[in-house]
């Protein structure tokens, strides 16, 4: 049954990835799919910037601009940033805690395929009558009035992919609680694992409100519901509350893993233990907790009243405290360290001032009275791009370079990596810094063009030039990936030479069972401790033996495909006769797949001890 070291044809490789339940392969799937959507979202961003390069531009029409703008935001948040975060988590977290796999390998695969089909469904809208055009927040007053099926694609696509995210969150919670190696206590977990843990808890509690909001919107648009229709007693503010009860924690769902990635990188390339580890853990948990009490700061201008605004303003500003703790801890990790400026470290160092700018404008926005000025202006656009690009995208790029050798066994080229970094870093600040001032000068967000003679020309032109820098950086990164894949040399366990955590103790890429023997963890930075004592490997916690592995399965793919078909049917059920039956057939496909999952026993299989020993010998020789 073992698939170790076997040459495969193309068809077999595709089948392998369709059915895999191995967290490392699922990480690659997330990386490819998330990377694809990142390029798509980037392309949409370029269209936006070209349209806004000069006043009165007619590169695209106003209606198409709304679609591109909506899809840029939605794609970047749900289909690029989230899955790329999940790619990092899947690639690293199980190995960091000394586990052979996640708690629910089947659900891991299901989570990916749900996200994938949800994303494809959302993008089908381009070809089937028009994309959603009510902004990524899709406020009900706008989206109920949208004439095309775009919003329906948004609602059903996000529902499917959101389900996948929720499943992924539960999986990582249980994995981190139940699957840690002996000695891996909570306070010895690497920061990235801690960040994943807190993020997963946020996912668990933040996604259900989105699910409910999307159900309401689906009912209103497709099945005659009246949740948001004031004429029949509905209330559009309900959407705003539910959306932001999800939407604000979502920001932390994205940025906490980014903090985790940078914490690993700072410690590794400063060749020092992370400064203030326990305060970092505390700050992460506190940010996660506070993240749920600030959603109404997105709604200061709705008219909730001065008391509500004041409470949410103060809660929002309070988040600056744990975030500040983190910033100082990173600075003090570098202080006195023997720093190496590798590509990941460049992103990490650049992240600090970039993210602090985003944090400062965040506190400015949090002042409710002042927010009436900033609201719906380019100031807000600048703010959230500083935190999402300066925080999350920098972290994802840093993490991709940092863990690339662990995922693929080859180092990305450092020279090209630095070219990417400089292009992206300069482009990012060129694009977004000026937007603060455009906003303060009165340029509203989400407009498809502006007039000449209002002082907005230079700023917008600079912003567009910056976007081209970022696009160039991305192209260099793609070239780097291709060159590395074709020409790169195989690397050993610890290609950065300063790895501290368990993932650097196993071969690159890790064998499918991760650890031949479950390691005994003797402290924080478990691998570093062993290296400092002059040992080559980890201290094993068990004798060599047969290794239990989960079976591959196609069922997650089928379940997700069922929901995809079902969504397509229900979306068109008011227009075509085939809609309703197709919708029901799709649901039945999913239910039948679930039924088979329930009745077929799945005990997994064992890799015999001899095969493990042979693979380990080969791995050590490479």
């Amino acid at each position, binding site marked *: 049954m073992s698939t170790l070291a076997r040459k495969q044809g193309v068809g077999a490789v595709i089948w392998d990835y369709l059915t895999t339940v191995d967290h490392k392969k699922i990480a690659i799937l997330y990386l490819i799919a998330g990377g694809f959507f990142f390029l798509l979202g980037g392309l949409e961003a370029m269209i936006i910037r070209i349209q806004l390069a000069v006043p009165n531009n007619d590169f695209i029409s106003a209606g198409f601009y709304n679609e591109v703008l909506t899809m840029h935001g939605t794609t970047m948040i749900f289909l690029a940033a989230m899955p790329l975060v999940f790619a990092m988590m899947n690639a690293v977290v199980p190995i960091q805690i000394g586990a052979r796999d996640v708690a629910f390998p089947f659900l891991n695969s299901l989570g990916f395929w749900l996200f994938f089909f949800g994303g494809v469904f959302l993008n089908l809208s381009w070809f089937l009558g028009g994309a959603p055009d009510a902004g990524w927040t899709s406020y009900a007053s706008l989206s109920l009035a949208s004439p095309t099926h775009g919003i329906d694609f948004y609602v059903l696509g996000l529902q499917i992919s959101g389900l996948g995210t929720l499943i992924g969150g*539960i999986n990582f*919670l*249980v994995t981190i609680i139940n699957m840690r190696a002996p000695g891996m206590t909570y306070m010895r977990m690497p920061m990235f694992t801690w960040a994943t843990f807190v993020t997963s808890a946020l996912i668990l509690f933040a996604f259900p409100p989105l699910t409910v909001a999307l159900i309401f919107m689906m*009912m209103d648009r497709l099945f*005659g*519901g*009246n949740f948001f229709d004031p004429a*029949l007693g509905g209330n559009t503010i309900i959407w705003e509350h539910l959306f932001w009860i999800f939407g604000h924690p979502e920001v932390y769902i994205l940025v906490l893993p980014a903090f985790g990635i940078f914490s690993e990188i700072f410690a590794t390339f400063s060749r020092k233990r992370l400064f203030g580890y326990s305060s970092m853990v505390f700050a992460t948990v506190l940010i996660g907790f506070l993240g749920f009490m600030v959603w109404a700061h997105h709604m200061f201008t709705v008219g909730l009243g001065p008391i509500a605004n004041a409470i949410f303003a103060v809660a929002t500003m309070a988040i600056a405290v744990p975030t500040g703790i983190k910033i100082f801890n990173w600075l003090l990790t570098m202080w006195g360290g023997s720093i190496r400026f590798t590509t990941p470290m460049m992103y990490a160092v650049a992240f600090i001032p970039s993210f602090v700018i985003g944090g400062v404008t965040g506190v400015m926005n949090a002042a409710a009275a002042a927010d009436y000025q900033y609201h719906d202006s380019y100031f807000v656009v600048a703010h959230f791009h500083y935190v999402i690009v300066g925080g999350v995208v920098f972290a994802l790029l840093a993490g991709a370079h940092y863990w690339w050798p662990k995922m693929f066994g080859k180092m990305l080229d450092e020279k090209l990596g630095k070219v990417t970094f400089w292009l992206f870093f300069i482009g990012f600040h060129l694009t977004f810094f000026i937007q603060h001032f455009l906003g303060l000068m009165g340029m509203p967000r989400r407009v498809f063009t502006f007039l000449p003679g209002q002082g907005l020309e230079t700023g917008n032109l600079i912003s567009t030039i910056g976007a081209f820098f970022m696009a160039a950086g991305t192209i260099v990164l793609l070239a780097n990936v291709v060159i590395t894949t074709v020409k790169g040399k195989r690397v050993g366990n610890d290609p950065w030479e300063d790895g501290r955590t368990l993932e650097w103790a196993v071969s690159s890429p890790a064998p499918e069972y991760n650890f031949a023997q479950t390691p005994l963890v003797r402290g924080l930075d478990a691998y570093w401790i062993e290296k400092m004592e002059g040992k080559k490997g980890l201290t094993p916690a068990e004798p060599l033996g047969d290794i239990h592995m989960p079976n591959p399965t196609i069922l997650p793919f089928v379940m997700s495909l069922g929901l995809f078909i079902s969504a397509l049917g229900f979306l068109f059920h008011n227009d075509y006769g085939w809609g309703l039956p197709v919708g029901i057939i799709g649901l039945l496909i999913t239910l039948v797949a679930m039924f088979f999952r*329930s*009745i077929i026993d799945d005990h997994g299989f064992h890799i015999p001890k001899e095969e493990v020993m042979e693979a380990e010998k080969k791995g050590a020789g490479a």
Partner: protein
Amino acid sequence: MHVEEKLTPETFPAEPEKATLEGKNKFLGFWFFLGGETVLFASLFATYLALKDSVAGGPSGKELFQMPIVFLATMLLLTSSLTSVYAMHHMRNFDFKKMQLWLGITVLLGAAFLALEIYEFTEYVHEGFKFSTSAFSSAFYTLVGTHGVHVAFGLLWILTLMIRNAKRGLNLYNAPKFYVASLYWHFIDVVWVFIFTVVYLMGMVG
């Protein structure tokens, strides 16, 4: 302990649902899932409370709700929660037949509840209270209907488990499955207690 081990009442562990790593994972993961479900229903309840007086000229809760049928439904579902506890008691004692019997009773009670709910909904529709009548009607049907869908799914799930394992009896592979299904059933019951209070009792008073 190994999953496929043949067990006797003497060797069967005290907490069979958590005797294997897979069982432990399922147990914990399912509790987390119920945590997410709680937030889901909390959002539905909050919306219902916000919209319950928005009848838009249609019937209100006070005019619609009938105590006898709702009370009967509540009693059926509460009793089914009790019978599922009996089933789990017998599971821990490795008494497969009695477990199946009590699960069977649970399913019957659940099905009766569901039948009453369907009857209730059709009555409302006959009285002109459709899903699209008002914001209140949409919120009512979505909240109570989501619960009803959970009941239906729970029935299918427990039935599948009963039939699948009818011949081979209990082992450490299926014990966690039975256990989390019963957890799910309790959760459905707890949600109904809130629906009974917030939707029906509060609806009939005010």
